[in-house]
């Protein structure tokens, strides 16, 4: 509770700071607020852990999810300053909205009452709809914002209907409530709630918005969508499945594995054909979501760390990718594969961190992505889903093709060599994220013990 209170106060003050002429204070202040909130989460054990009559409960996995969300946002906030270079001065609004969306994210990963899930989802989404349209004068950003808004609101309405059906069956919003009505209706409500969440995560039947929205949104907020929103939505799904396990019948798990399979197959095939790197990363994010979903198939509290580990590996790597894309886009005004040509000779640092991140996304050895895929697929294999594991492995290998195509572009000579520079704070954040990826890959035990 303390961390949510701190975030609310920070966000409100940040919005007021936007009135002052001096805008240099805004981002350090926001980052400090988020940092303090994260520290509160990490340190305070007992103070206000159960709130609103136990409708929310930060403990165990939900604490890890929340800390991951706050940590990722700490890496994103400094980059908001990039908007000033383009002549957009409303960074207080962007920073404030980003912090408000974190509150929604924390609510989504720690609810035990569906009312909180709905409110958290809306707090997160409404802020993100605005951030998607942050570049008001660019038509692409407008289009992305509108598409995200229409489909996001559609998904929330579906989720709300699922919650209403759940309430009709149990007369309560609590996930551990006893069932009053017949359980077919209850399973239908699970199905509807699950589709609402799948929309937010962008799993395959509900993924069509993601590439468009990712491409049109200003890249810094694309990074937010690909990391913070996805982690929150997976946290919500995790909480939902782990608390509702006893109500669910076998076919829900069949459905989950079917969705995971189609997600992995379709997204990887579609990613192969993309010219725009942002779209390719969007499809790659969808395919990673499919892999994470495999981790949900035999969910038990002891195994939750493999999902968290995967989310950590995915979100650090894709954050690095999107931030590098931001710099390339800034210099060459588009995000096609061709604009990455010769990146190594323009700025070796960017090319190297991007390669590490791409290898990690592809599941190359010695990176976090490899261990993450190993843990998740190992769990699935133990549970007996051998066919699923084989398919996932085939498409993981296929995915290496499009990651390495981009790496190949970056390291091949281009006609003209421009030397691009990058400021030290940004380089520092990218370095920290890349080192995190490698350390988590070489010594996974450190992170796994921490998550356990």
């Amino acid at each position, binding site marked *: 509770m303390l961390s949510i209170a701190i975030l609310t106060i920070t966000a409100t003050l940040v919005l007021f700071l936007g009135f002052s002429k001096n805008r240099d204070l805004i981002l350090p202040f926001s980052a400090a607020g988020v940092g303090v909130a994260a520290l509160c989460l990490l340190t305070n054990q007992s103070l206000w852990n159960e709130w609103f009559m136990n409708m929310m409960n930060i403990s165990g996995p939900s604490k890890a999810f929340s800390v991951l969300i706050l940590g990722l946002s700490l890496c994103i906030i400094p980059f908001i300053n990039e908007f000033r270079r383009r002549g957009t001065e409303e960074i207080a609004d962007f920073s404030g909205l980003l912090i408000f969306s974190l509150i929604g994210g924390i609510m989504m990963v720690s609810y035990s009452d569906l009312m909180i899930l709905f409110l958290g989802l809306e707090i997160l989404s*409404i802020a993100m709809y605005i951030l998607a349209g942050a570049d008001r004068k660019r*038509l692409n950003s407008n289009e992305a914002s509108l598409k995200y808004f229409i489909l996001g609101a559609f998904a929330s309405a579906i989720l709300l*209907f699922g919650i209403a059906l759940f309430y009709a069956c149990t007369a309560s919003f609590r996930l551990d409530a006893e069932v009053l009505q017949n359980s077919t209706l209850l399973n239908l409500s699970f199905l509807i709630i699950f589709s609402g969440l799948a929309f937010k995560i962008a799993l395959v039947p509900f993924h069509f918005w993601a590439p468009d929205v990712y491409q049109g949104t200003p890249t810094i907020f694309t990074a937010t969508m690909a990391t913070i929103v996805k982690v929150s939505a997976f946290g919500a799904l995790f909480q939902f499945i782990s608390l509702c396990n006893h109500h669910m019948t076998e076919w829900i798990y069949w459905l989950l594995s079917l969705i995971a399979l189609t997600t992995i197959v379709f997204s990887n095939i579609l990613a192969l054909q993309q010219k725009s790197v942002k779209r390719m990363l969007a499809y790659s994010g969808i395919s990673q979501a499919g892999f994470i979903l495999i981790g949900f198939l035999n969910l038990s509290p002891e195994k939750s760390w493999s999902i968290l580990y995967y989310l950590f590996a995915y979100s650090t790597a894709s954050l690095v990718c999107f931030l590098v894309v931001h710099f390339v886009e800034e210099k060459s005004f588009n995000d096609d594969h061709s604009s990455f040509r010769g990146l190594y000779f323009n700025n070796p640092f960017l090319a190297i961190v991007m390669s590490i991140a791409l290898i990690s996304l592809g599941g190359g050895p010695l990176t976090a992505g490899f261990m993450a895929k190993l843990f998740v697929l190992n769990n699935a294999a133990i549970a007996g889903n051998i066919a699923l594991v084989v398919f996932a492995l085939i498409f993981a290998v296929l995915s290496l093709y499009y990651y390495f195509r981009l790496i190949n572009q970056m390291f091949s000579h281009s006609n003209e060599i421009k030397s691009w520079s990058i400021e030290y704070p940004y380089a520092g954040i990218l370095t920290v994220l890349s080192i995190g990826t490698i350390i988590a890959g070489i010594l996974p035990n450190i992170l796994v013990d921490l998550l356990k």
Partner: protein
Amino acid sequence: MENSTPEIFSAIPLTYYILLSTALFVVGLIGVMTRKNIIIVFMCIEMMLNAANLMLTSTSAYYGNSGGQIMVFFTMAVAAAEVAVGLAIIVMVYKNLKTTHIDIFNKLKG
């Protein structure tokens, strides 16, 4: 839960409310998928939210449990926030494109 079902439910059974709200929801769902004007699509989304609200209020009255009614208040507040943001986005788009037709949005493609 003690059986104190309100009088009204003997005249109009709960199933009818559930069927009505499901029908409203489906109408909204089809509207979102087929309509071409952003404003109409937006209205259909609101209809889906209200279908859920109807189900919440009727079941809440049926069970004599106030949770559903409270949820409806929250939903209405959230829907108001969503309308504010949504209309702002539509106005922003309209300023740039002078149209609210959905087919105009095909710039982002693979």
